[in-house]
């Protein structure tokens, strides 16, 4: 029998306020975003942090929606496009953690993109965003390659990521985005 208390205890200790594992659908995202807005309202979060968390969350979750590849069938059976995400609230920041399978063939391309973004400072990111916005092609999925740049810009943090190779075909990509509570302004 699964130790449910163990799950609870781990999540409590990591200050997880919401978690999900499974197929990421449009309806799910609507619900999750609604729940998070209500939670942040109940916590009386300042509009500034609320907006940042919401914006970053939208991009992170829509990345899962668009870019989750099939899970390795031999290990996980038929649950083909499953992902995981967790939202944690610490003393001074929110953490948005996501994990999804991607094809091992795609790892290098994504890693290069993340490293490019991580090598840039604030002004470089702004210039890069504008250039991709203005010159980039829109994919049929409706993405424009702007998601990760936007996450880095809005969070003001380096993208903390990891790739774990499962087999030749599949790898697991995890991303931990921190949204820091801006220091409260003195009136």
């Amino acid at each position, binding site marked *: 029998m699964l130790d449910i208390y163990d799950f609870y205890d781990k999540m409590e200790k990591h200050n997880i306020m919401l978690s999900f594992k499974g197929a990421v659908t*449009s309806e799910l995202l609507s619900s999750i*975003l609604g729940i998070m807005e209500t939670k942040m309202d109940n916590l009386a979060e300042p509009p500034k942090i609320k907006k940042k968390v919401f914006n970053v969350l*939208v991009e992170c979750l829509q990345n899962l*929606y668009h870019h989750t590849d099939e899970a390795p069938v031999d290990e996980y059976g038929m649950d083909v496009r499953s992902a995981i995400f967790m939202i944690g609230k610490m003393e001074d920041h929110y953490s948005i953690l996501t994990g999804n399978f991607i094809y091992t063939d795609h790892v290098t391309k994504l890693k290069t993109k993340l490293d490019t973004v991580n090598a840039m400072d604030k002004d470089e990111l702004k210039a890069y965003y504008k250039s991709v916005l203005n010159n980039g092609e*829109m994919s049929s999925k*409706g*993405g*424009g390659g702007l998601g990760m740049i936007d996450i880095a*810009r809005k969070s003001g943090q380096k993208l903390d990521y990891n790739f774990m190779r499962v087999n030749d075909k599949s790898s697991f990509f995890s991303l931990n985005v921190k949204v820091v509570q801006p220091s409260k302004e003195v009136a």
Partner: protein
Amino acid sequence: MENINIEGTPKTPTVKFDAGGGRLELSGRSIPENSIEFYKPLLDWIESYGGSPQGKTEVDIKLEYFNTSSSKCILDVFKKLEGVGSTDMTINWYYEEDDEDMLEAGEDYQAIINIPFKMIEVEEM
């Protein structure tokens, strides 16, 4: 030509395009997973409006949130508006006080688009 009146949803904005009044308004949130479908009719409308625009055209953008999928479509809206000739056009970009990200987003468009922008800070959208 017909006006556009679309009610907003939690993921798509309220749209009010009034050809006779020369007023175009986009408000609320624009965070659909794929925004191309939503924006296509708006682009077509602007194209037709360009055929016989009013002497003055006011564009109000009052977005609380928009995702990166929408950011490209919004740029396409502005590019279409650039193509509307012989009208005195202003884009009013609204942002809530303290929302530096939204102000900065407006400035990003301003740097790319050749239409005068007015940045307008409001207490609440």
